[in-house]
């Protein structure tokens, strides 16, 4: 039965629909059960992934692929769903607008992300992308009474819709040239004779632009800082890990696998984009005062590092991307749990608001230091191996110059991460009252910190796992 293979997705959608009805029926002050139900839904979906593990097949007329790569990302995205739901509960209960639809949209977005990673058909990948995008537009504007949130939504929507139309035009050209939308078929046609024509080159550019927008590669990153700053903070946390990881997974399916005949063209394009994205992200982050905006540029820089893996496009580099995404999800989820807490308590979003946090919340401040160390890429954290694998893959395939830019950029990034650490440990707090970390946020913080350290010290089993799930062999 095909449906058994998409049981996790079915569970999420079913729970989301139940919550949608629940949101309409229950008043605002009686919606405390919603994050609990949403978390339970995500966990049930995680359990439902288990029966399909290790199998390889195509379902629904080869629209959806069941393979290790899909399962790997399915698990990652469901974990993202759990972490973001837990981080949102306290924040959303304090909002004026009903919190119910928030979890529904989050669950729909996660479903779309799963379909993006587990499809080998351009039509299904695009549908997944739109499910993520349309949910994200609404999530960005969820604080309706806040003009900044409105502005984030309208900017994200208009730019996102243009990017989506450009992407679609590219897809239509690929379809016209190959006569199919299935990536496996496209890969086979091209190896024969179709490589090289100008039309396919134009289509490739449009695909890079469309997906590059989604994952915020420079020069398609203009929306990210505004959307990150204006959106409700839990939504920012989601944007920085969820849609990004899904976009990169879809890009791995499309470029190294589907359009492998054009490798020489897009490889160079991605190499240039990677170099520019890293540098612009890090240099702009240096001058930011708002931590959400700083994290937006930080995440742009991280995507730059990951794009090196796309440019190299070997089995080693694709595995490196998968490890990077796994590490990055835990780092950012953990880091944002504190940003959410400080925003929720009204302490603020500015870096100067973090002054003296080491006295006000010592454990949380220490955990944040771990995350910053991981983002820089210092040993004994997951971030070190993430960058090391990308670096090694680049050097092996003769992209020495990209590896050097990666190293230089990691050094630059110390500058702005240190700014926050300095504020937390060296600056005196304006108000020395302790900040109590609620249980749900504490759980996210602890999960993130433990996973970051575990991946940095005992990375062996995870590397073997990724080897099993690898798409390129």
């Amino acid at each position, binding site marked *: 039965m095909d449906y058994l293979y998409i049981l996790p997705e079915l569970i999420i959608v079913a729970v989301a629909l139940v919550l949608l009805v629940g949101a309409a029926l229950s008043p605002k002050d009686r919606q405390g059960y919603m994050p609990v139900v949403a978390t339970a839904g995500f966990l049930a979906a995680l359990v439902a992934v288990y029966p399909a593990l290790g199998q390889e097949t195509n379902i629904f007329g080869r629209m959806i692929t069941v393979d290790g790569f899909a399962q790997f990302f399915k698990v990652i995205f469901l974990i993202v769903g759990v972490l973001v739901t837990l981080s949102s509960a306290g924040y959303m209960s304090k909002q004026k607008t009903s919190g119910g639809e928030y979890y529904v949209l989050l669950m729909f977005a996660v479903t779309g992300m799963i379909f993006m990673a587990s499809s080998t058909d351009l039509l299904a990948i695009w*549908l997944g992308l739109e499910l993520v995008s349309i949910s994200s*537009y609404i999530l960005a504007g969820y604080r309706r009474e806040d003009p900044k949130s409105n502005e984030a939504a309208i*900017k994200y929507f208009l730019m996102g819709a243009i990017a989506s139309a450009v992407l679609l035009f590219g897809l239509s050209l690929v379809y016209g040239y190959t006569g199919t939308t299935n990536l496996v078929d496209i890969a086979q046609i091209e190896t024969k004779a179709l490589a090289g024509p100008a039309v396919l080159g134009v289509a490739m550019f449009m695909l890079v632009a469309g997906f590059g927008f989604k994952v915020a590669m420079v020069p398609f990153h203009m929306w990210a800082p505004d959307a990150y700053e204006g959106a409700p903070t839990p939504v920012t946390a989601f944007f920085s890990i969820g849609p990004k990881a899904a976009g990169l997974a879809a890009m791995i399916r499309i470029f190294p696998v589907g359009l492998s005949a054009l490798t020489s063209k897009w490889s160079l394009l991605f190499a240039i984009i990677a170099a520019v994205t890293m540098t612009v992200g890090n240099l702009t982050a240096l001058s930011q005062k708002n931590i959400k905006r700083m994290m937006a540029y930080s995440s742009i820089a991280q995507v730059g590092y990951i794009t090196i893996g796309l440019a190299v496009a070997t089995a080693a580099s694709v595995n490196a991307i998968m490890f990077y995404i796994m590490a990055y999800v835990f780092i950012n989820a953990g880091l944002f749990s504190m940003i959410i807490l400080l925003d929720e308590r009204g302490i603020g979003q500015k870096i100067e608001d973090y002054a003296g946090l080491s006295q006000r919340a010592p454990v949380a401040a220490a955990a944040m230091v771990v995350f910053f160390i991981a983002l820089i890429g210092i040993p004994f954290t997951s971030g070190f191996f993430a960058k090391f694998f990308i670096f090694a893959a680049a050097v092996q395939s003769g992209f020495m110059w990209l590896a050097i830019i990666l190293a230089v950029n990691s050094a630059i990034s110390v500058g702005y991460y240190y700014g926050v650490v300095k504020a937390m440990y060296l600056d005196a707090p304006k108000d020395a009252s302790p900040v109590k970390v609620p249980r749900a946020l504490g759980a996210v913080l602890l999960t993130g910190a433990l996973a970051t350290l575990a991946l940095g010290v005992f990375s062996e089993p995870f590397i073997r796992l990724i080897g099993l799930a690898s798409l390129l062999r």
Partner: protein
Amino acid sequence: MTAAVSQIPLAYVLVFGALLFGLGLYGALLRTNAVRILMSIELMLNAVNINLVAFNQYLSPGYVNGQIFSIFIITVAASEAAVGLAIILEVVRRRNVIDIDKINLLKW
């Protein structure tokens, strides 16, 4: 395929699609009124539909992949427009502006 359709070369249809797309992209990038941008985006999506249907009809008339793709695009475009108009309406209600150049609380 009727006789009239078969006499129009595929290239003409594709050039029409590309022009429509260019027109939409021009409008989407250079207009500042949010609703006009939304209309331009719809033009771009319809250009894609023309492409898909034309490729399907001329190159692989036995299959319907392209036509099904275009039906999905029409559906998604409708939901995208619904969400987009709701967001635009919210901005206009709060701030009474529709010009995206004047929506500039967030910068650097």
